C-alpha cells in the first residue's frame, strides 16, 4: 500500500470521531434543554448510541483487528441495552406518575391499565367480569399491574 493508505484511514477515522463527538454533545444538550422526562429519554438514547457507534468506528479504523472486533461487541451491547434502559425508565416514570398523561398524544399503556383496573373492580364487586378479567389473576404480572393502577392518584 502506498503512502496514501494510512492517510485515507486517518481522514476517515477523524471524520467519524468528530461526527460521533458532535452527536454525543448534541445528545447531552438535549438532555439539558428538553422540557420533560419522555423527551429527555429520546435525547439520552438515540444521539448517544449514534455518537458512541461513530466514535468506536473511528477508533476501530486505527487499531488492529482483534481490538476492533471487541469494539464491535461494545457497539452491539450498547445497541441492545439502550432501548431496554429507555423503556424501563419510561415505564417506571409513567407508573409512578412522573409523566403528565394529558401531554401524551397516544397513550396505549394508560388505556390498557384503565381496562385492567375496571375489570379488577368489576370482579371484586361481584359484577360479571369483562372478558379481560377472566376470574383469578393469571399470574404475578397481572396482579402487580392491577395494584399499580390502584396506587395511581384518584381524581
Amino acid at each position, binding site marked *: 500500500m502506498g503512502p496514501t493508505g494510512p492517510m485515507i484511514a486517518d481522514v476517515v477515522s477523524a471524520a467519524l470521531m468528530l461526527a460521533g463527538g458532535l452527536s454525543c454533545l448534541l445528545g447531552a444538550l438535549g438532555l439539558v434543554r428538553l422540557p420533560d422526562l419522555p423527551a429527555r429519554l429520546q435525547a439520552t438514547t438515540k444521539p448517544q448510541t449514534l455518537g458512541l457507534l461513530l466514535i468506536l468506528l473511528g*477508533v476501530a479504523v486505527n487499531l488492529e483487528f482483534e481490538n476492533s472486533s471487541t469494539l464491535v461487541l461494545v457497539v452491539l451491547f450498547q445497541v441492545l441495552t439502550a432501548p431496554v434502559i429507555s423503556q424501563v425508565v419510561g415505564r417506571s416514570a409513567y*407508573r409512578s406518575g412522573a409523566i403528565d398523561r394529558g401531554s401524551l398524544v397516544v397513550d396505549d399503556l394508560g388505556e390498557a391499565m384503565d381496562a385492567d383496573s375496571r375489570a379488577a373492580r368489576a370482579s371484586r364487586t361481584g359484577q360479571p367480569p369483562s372478558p379481560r378479567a377472566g376470574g383469578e389473576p393469571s399470574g404475578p404480572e397481572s396482579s402487580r399491574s392491577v395494584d399499580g393502577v390502584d396506587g395511581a392518584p384518584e381524581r
Partner: protein
Amino acid sequence: MTVVYTLVLVMLTAAAALTLWRLLQGPTTLDRIAALDVFVVLIVAAAAVYAAIYSDGSNIPLLAAVALIALVGSATAARLVERWERHR
C-alpha cells in the same frame, strides 16, 4: 490527528459537564438515572479515544463489560423507583 483527538475529547468533556448538570439538577430520580446512563456512554467513548491515541487496546474488553453493567444498574434503579413511588 492530535487536533482531532483534542477536539473530540473537548466535545466529550462538554457533553459530560452538561450531563452532570442534569444529574445534579434532577428534578426526578428517573432523570438522574437517565443522566447517569449517558455519563457511562460518554466514559466508554472517551476510553475508546484514549485507546486510539496511545494505540493501546488493553482496556477495550473492559468497555464491553461497562456497557453491559450499565444496563443492570439503570434497569434495577428504575424498577426500585417504581416501587418507591407506588408505596408512597
